[in-house]
């Protein structure tokens, strides 16, 4: 590495805008790529990252299909083992990245600009924010917005129970709040915000910052391995780098497939409940003749047709979006999405118990501050079910999403300073999540406490949102908007994910031929369908998320170190250059 303000690399690649510190490497972007064409379609793929990830994912899907019982058993063992054994590790990694990001905001290195000192942002605040939000949380907010605060509230209210082995058998966070409604609300909201606030966004921010820094300022290709240059040197272009990138592809693919699974299940449930016919108890509930959402006791098995249809339709929209590209597809959809989400949020806020909700927002923030140290404590916890079943799962899920969301955020964040970047990626989205959870969860909890409305308490997770909306005016319209939002969020995750996987498997090239994006987008849809319909359904997807999240948690820690090293040289270069001006 050298300080450069003149010419940088052996290929004579010149500087980014203004002063910066480039990394000198022998590596040419695309040098390991295979270019060619298959019929009319051109391709430009990284060897071996593309092939290895493609083949292993295909083999995995085949195994799940061929041996469904063994696969199901293996997945559930894996899930229990990883969340049970490594819960402390996930929690600790989460805490470390949050502290790291907060430190960067206040330290002087926060003034470093991504893309060189004189770079200007590619996107305005609205488009930028819409994209990072739609990619980052999307479907989860729809799925868990009502159900999570409601669940934590009910379990906390139920208090603690201890099994014969002395371990807690309840799912309440911390010590619960048996019988104390007000405290149960505060604890439930604090636990939800803990899962949706600073911690997940810090995980995204670390990956995004690492990628943006090493790509825009150091001139390395936009793939995860580039961030490891300070630790691995030229070896990042060999197998250590291949492994990192392949891991990132797995994490992204399975993370996406899980979310697609959640999204499809929720949309299918919503459609059947709102527009379907028949009754769940008799096993006659169906949407357009496809049975779905019937009670287990009725003995009628759900038809996979509805899920397949939904995932196919949504993948098709995502395909149009990736073909149209970032500006013409992804950005437009993200903005539509944010508009609709704001509408729905505003409506629930006004139609719901407005004053109580505003109060909930502030009291939830306070409760978050109060309970955070206890919730974030990785050691000696007694609320085993909560820590392993909720927190550790979430952390693994966010971490497995982080290469995808991080890379996507990096792609649209050139020209921001580190401080501006972290405030916008960490603090603002966290606040928006608090607001969202307070309004959606708060309304449901109020409906339950004040009106004794059982719908929101009894409904399964994926239906709680619609139950909450049903008790407000204009339920027909808002539920429709809810379903559209689930579907569009689904699309915006799928298209941005395809762009990311495509870039990683093309060795950091962002201008690889469009058919490659089409391939990954369709492949994601196919994986989601196969895994959703196979033995374990969603639980097999969740286990895969957990298993890819674990190795990536280690990657996340290493990234913090790399960012620190990279920012130090960056700032030194700026300082060295300033007196000369």
């Amino acid at each position, binding site marked *: 590495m050298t300080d450069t303000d003149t010419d940088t690399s052996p290929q004579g690649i010149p500087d*980014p805008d203004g002063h910066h510190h480039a990394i000198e490497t022998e590596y040419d*972007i*695309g040098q390991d790529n295979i270019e060619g064409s298959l019929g009319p379609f051109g391709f430009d793929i990284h060897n071996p990252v593309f092939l290895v990830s493609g083949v292993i994912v295909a083999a995995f899907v085949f195994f799940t299909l061929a041996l469904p019982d063994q696969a199901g058993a293996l997945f559930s063992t894996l899930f229990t083992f990883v969340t049970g054994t490594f819960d402390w590790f996930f929690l600790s990694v989460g805490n470390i990245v949050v502290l790291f990001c907060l430190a960067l905001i206040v330290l002087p290195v926060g003034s470093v600009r991504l893309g060189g000192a004189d770079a200007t942002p590619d996107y305005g605040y609205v488009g930028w924010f819409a994209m990072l939000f739609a990619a980052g949380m999307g479907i989860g907010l729809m799925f868990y917005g009502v159900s999570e605060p409601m669940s934590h509230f009910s379990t906390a209210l139920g208090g603690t129970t201890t099994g014969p082995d002395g371990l807690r058998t309840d799912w309440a966070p911390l010590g619960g709040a048996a019988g104390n409604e007000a405290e149960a609300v505060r604890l439930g909201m604090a636990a939800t915000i803990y899962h949706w606030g600073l911690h997940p966004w810090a995980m995204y921010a670390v990956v995004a910052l690492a990628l943006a820094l090493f790509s825009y300022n150091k001139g390395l*290709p936009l793939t995860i391995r580039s961030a490891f240059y300070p630790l691995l040197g030229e070896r990042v272009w060999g197998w250590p780098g291949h492994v990192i990138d392949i891991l990132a592809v797995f994490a992204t693919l399975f993370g996406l497939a899980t979310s697609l699974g959640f999204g499809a299940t929720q949309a299918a449930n919503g459609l059947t409940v709102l527009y379907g016919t028949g009754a769940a108890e008799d096993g006659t509930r169906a949407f357009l003749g496809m049975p779905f959402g019937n009670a287990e006791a009725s003995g009628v098995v759900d038809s996979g047709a509805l899920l397949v249809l939904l995932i196919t339709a949504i993948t098709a929209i995502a395909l149009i979006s990736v073909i149209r*590209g970032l*500006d013409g597809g992804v950005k437009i959809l993200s903005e539509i999405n944010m508009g609709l989400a704001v509408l729905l949020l505003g409506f629930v806020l006004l139609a719901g118990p407005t004053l109580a909700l505003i109060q909930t927002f502030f009291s939830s923030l306070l409760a978050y501050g109060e309970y955070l140290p206890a919730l974030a404590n990785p050691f000696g916890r007694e609320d085993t079910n909560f820590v392993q079943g909720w927190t550790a799962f979430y952390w693994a899920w966010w971490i497995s999403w982080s290469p995808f969301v991080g890379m996507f955020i990096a792609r649209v964040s*050139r020209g921001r300073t580190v401080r501006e970047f972290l405030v916008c990626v960490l603090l603002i989205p966290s606040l928006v999540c608090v607001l969202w959870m307070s309004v959606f969860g708060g309304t449901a909890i109020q409906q339950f406490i004040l009106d004794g409305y059982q719908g929101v308490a009894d409904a399964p997770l994926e239906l709680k949102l619609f139950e909450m909306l049903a008790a407000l005016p204009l339920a027909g319209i808002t539920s429709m908007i809810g379903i559209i939002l689930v579907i569009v969020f689904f699309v915006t995750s799928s298209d941005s994910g395809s762009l990311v996987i495509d870039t990683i498997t093309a060795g950091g090239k962002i201008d690889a031929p469009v058919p490659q994006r089409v391939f990954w987008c369709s492949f994601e849809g196919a994986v989601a369908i196969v895994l959703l319909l196979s033995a374990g359904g969603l639980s097999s997807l969740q286990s895969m998320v957990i298993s890819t999240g674990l190795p990536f948690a280690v990657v996340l820690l290493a990234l913090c170190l790399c960012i620190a090293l990279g920012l130090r040289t960056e700032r030194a270069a700026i300082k060295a250059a300033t007196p000369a001006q």
Partner: protein
Amino acid sequence: MFKHIMLPVDLAHPDKLNRALQVTGDLARHHDARVTFVGVTGPQPGSVAASPEGFAQKLAAFAAIQAEGLGLSMIETHPVTVPDPAADLDRALERAVHDLGADLVVMGSHIPRRFDLGSHGGRVASHTDVSVMLVRG
């Protein structure tokens, strides 16, 4: 007949551009027309350059060399940065035709990319009112 010829250039595959360059040179000399090279890139480091500014410099250097080889007094350059070059190329080229006020676009049929989901030359021809000449090779 032609006053301003625009030639889209893919710096990643300059070897495929030879025939289009020859044609451009011949036409420019014959009609005494200006020539502008248009290059499209993304904000991220790519195989050509580490940044849009680097890309612009490479495009200018390429144009200087070609001007000498083709016997033209000068070739102007028009580098364009778009968020997603693989998808935004067609629109970027259309806009460049407009911005430059070019009256002829010469394109290598594999330049700037091979045919991926449609022909770039065909699209430029159908979306602008200028003459488009596709040079196979």
